[in-house]
């Protein structure tokens, strides 16, 4: 039997999954590996999308040391997630997958 889950994730959905993973880590922030597994991404796409999220100021990057970085959700990112959750509920009400 086929799984009822979507086989295709839109770009905005991937970005939101990444942001939710980061938010889930709270004030400690999330490292790239955590985000990679949390959002179920390949490494190439992870790098590309992390750059995009930082550029849009939805997340911020902090260098812990020369080799590791952690990401935090910005206020703008938090507002975006809240708005997306509302849109998600609205779309779900009409049976529209986003």
């Amino acid at each position, binding site marked *: 039997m086929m799984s009822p889950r*979507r086989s295709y994730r*839109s770009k905005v959905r991937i970005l939101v999954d990444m942001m939710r993973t980061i938010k889930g880590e709270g004030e400690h922030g999330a490292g790239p590996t955590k985000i990679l597994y949390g959002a179920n991404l390949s490494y190439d796409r992870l790098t590309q999308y992390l750059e995009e999220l930082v550029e849009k100021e939805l997340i911020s990057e902090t260098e812990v040391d020369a080799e590791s970085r952690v990401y935090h959700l910005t206020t703008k990112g938090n507002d975006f997630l809240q708005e997306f959750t509302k*849109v998600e509920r*609205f*779309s*779900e*009400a*009409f049976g*529209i997958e*986003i």
Partner: protein
Amino acid sequence: MQSWLASLIRLDLLLESVAGLIALAISHYANKAYQLTEQKRLSDLSSGFIVLSAAMFGRVIGTIYFFILSGDGSGNANLMMAVVTIAYGAMKIMAYVLFAISTRPTKSPTLEGGMVLLALPVLVDPNLDLVAILVLIVVVIQALMNYMSTRSKYAAYVLAGFTLLLLSHVVAIPAQTQLGGYALSQVVQFLGFIFFLVMLVKAGKE
């Protein structure tokens, strides 16, 4: 009798105007959601509600204009009202077809099929509530399937809204001979829009 009829028409126009505003609000929110997600179906949903809203406001304005023309003793009043009624029926069916397209399950008829459906009001007599009923049955079934799979209260509000819209067309069939049936149809339609409004407010707040 005449004053009762005038009150009924006033109430009808009031309910239609409020329902039109609700449709406009849903269209606006669906468009906002489309801008955020680029999901084409949200754009179709937005178009559906804006067409429905335009139909409702068109009917309200047309009816008011009809009374103005009638008061002046113009012979064009009946013709104008006939045009408004046909346009109202056709636009409503187009809106329902857009709802059917936007809320269809993921694996379903192609857009080409949907485009043919959009021509339905032109191909058949739009005065027939039967066409609206047939399209709305599809929409209600899709809303029911969505509710069964998600069990979300928001989906339940949408299901209730579309079911009441369908019911409003069903009770409108005998309304051609009974004024009470017509009034009931308008009230049921209005209640359907109230469910949409509740969904919109709750989805935006909780």
